[in-house]
């Protein structure tokens, strides 16, 4: 099935793309999607998205599914459906 992935911030700059459609299996989790993208885009992407342990999402990066932060869903185990929109958003402290 296809899901849409949107990129903001450093990941957008790194990949030079704002969004894309990604083909994944039914009931793919957010973690599995991000792993697939890491395998596609390599170490730079992996470093932006995952902590050094490779299992948890980097502090300061928000992942949403259809606008809802995954922390309010099932975390990285959140299961995706056809047409879901997954967005990677960096959150900065301060800034004035």
């Amino acid at each position, binding site marked *: 099935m296809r899901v849409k992935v949107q990129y*903001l911030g450093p990941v957008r700059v790194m990949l030079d793309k704002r969004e894309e459609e990604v083909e994944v299996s039914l009931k793919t989790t957010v973690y599995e999607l991000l792993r697939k993208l890491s395998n596609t885009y390599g170490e730079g992407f992996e470093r932006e998205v995952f902590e050094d342990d490779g299992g948890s999402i980097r502090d300061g990066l928000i992942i949403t599914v259809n606008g809802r932060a995954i922390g309010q869903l099932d975390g990285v185990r959140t299961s995706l459906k056809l047409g879901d929109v997954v967005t990677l958003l960096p*959150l900065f402290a301060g800034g004035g």
Partner: protein
Amino acid sequence: MNAYTGKILYVDLTSGRSKTGIFNEDFARAYIGGTGFGIKTLIDNQEPGIDPFDPQNPLIYAVGAASGTMVPCASSKFGVFAKSPASNLLGEAYSTGQWGAELRQAGYDIVVIKGKSPKPAYLWIDDESVQRMDASHLWGKTTWDTEETIRNDLGDQLIRVSAIGPAGEKLVRTACLLNDHFRAAGRTGLGAVAGSKNLKAVAVRGTHDVKVAQPEELRELCKDLYERCKGPATSKYRGLGTPANVLTLNAQGALPTRNYQSATFEGAETVSGEYLNEHFVTKIEGCTACPCRCEHIAEVREGPFKGAIARVEYEPTMAFGPYCGVDRLDAVIKAIEYCNLYGVDAISTGIVVGFGMECYERELITKEDTGGLELEFGNGEAMVEMVKKIALRKDVGDVLAEGVKRASEKIGRGSEHFAMHIKGVEVTGYELRGLKTCALGYAVSRRGADHQRHGSYGWDLGGKVDRFKADKGRGKLVMGDEDVYCIFDSMILCKFTRGIWDFDLIAKVYSLVTGIPMTGAELLKAGERMSNLARLYNVREGLTRKGDTLPPRIMKDPIPSGVAKGSYVNQEDLDILLDGYYEARGWTKEGVPKKEKLKELGLEAYANIAGKEES
């Protein structure tokens, strides 16, 4: 003492005389530096209830525990404190650059300035020499011209200058103190306090070494800290910088737009951090002892604002971009440049202009009032010109210069409903209607509407709590955030390095720098002490539970569209949030620290402020 100078400089601008006081290790241990030093010095040196423009309102500078040392991202910051002319409560603002380290090197940790000079003056601190200098030739100059002139007059290009612009001279309530070109003690109108004293600037040159207790051990630790400060925990600040928050907050329906009329902005892409870096950023600069270097300097190379140059962060981008409905960054950069030169806080002034735009569109002010400007949302040229009018108190700028609270009281006709302030201080860049933990942080923030005393939007936006619901548990979260940030703002550590620190590490650095034994738990207790002392100060100056509130628009008008559509913070929500916070804090239902809390924190001396205790 090590690192600490142990010295407080007291200046009487009326007579031009100064004297030095001292503080001991007990004071240092209890209050650390920065925030703690500033709040403690203010509450002990200011007569209760005075007017912020009274000459006896002390204008206080305080450096951090690690100022002037090799500790990365902790060497240069300083705080400025006084009774605020915006809120009539605690005025507090922090800046960085190079000024803070210079003051420590000159031999002072705290400067307390009272009185009023008979003529425009600047204070010249040259190591032990302290002089009140004539500033008649500086009055009316921009902040940048003031710095350049002082350096030329005194023959030393390494003098650091904290200066007001014309706005501070004219007692504009959003006036700031600017140093090192692009850095400001911006919020709560402290530039106006300086102006009320006829104080144009504080110039400082310091040539003493700052000796730390254990230099070899500290050096080894700092080598590791330097690498971590340059690592993945801070990379996004070096890369796109904080303006990247524009698209993040827009996507989450959390971007204050058109004076809080909505929470998403259709023009967000062209005022985003991504767009800024691609089209306008020319270099990245840093502060003293900073390996991160986060200052994104943007320049406009063509068009009506050609030549404008400013350091651009998220908050001013929000304030002059979406908040004013403006979707062009050249106008945003020009507006920030004017704020720097004329000496007004970019955040507050953007919010004031946005308020002015709504007043204009509702025909509460006219084109005659604006001096011919069509002050409509989206009009970048008018926005830029209005910044100047506010700073110079021209046309309706004279009313707007009072800040949105007082301006709306004067304009009336329902404008109070959309005057976006808390305790008289203008809101900042997080749409509180859909971020209820953050809304609590803002409602109780000791210096008025503010994100920097707590950072509690992290819980909401990070999905760690349900941001659309209010519950009593948020109180403990906000309390924890506030006390942690008190530590950061006392050491003073750059919040961009938050990811590399834990409290035991901060305590270890503190001990290596000062030689004073400290644990993480003791530091947290000191943070709690500062939060409570600040509350006591505000209670003394008249704050009650009623003041811990949110603007009417946030409490009555739901977000109209986007992922946060329908959300707002009603009175029931606010009461739940406040009750939970006061309980977590050990305060009464009116928000007054209870006696047992004062005893626990060694603040019994202020028990008279707490007064007769209610349950």
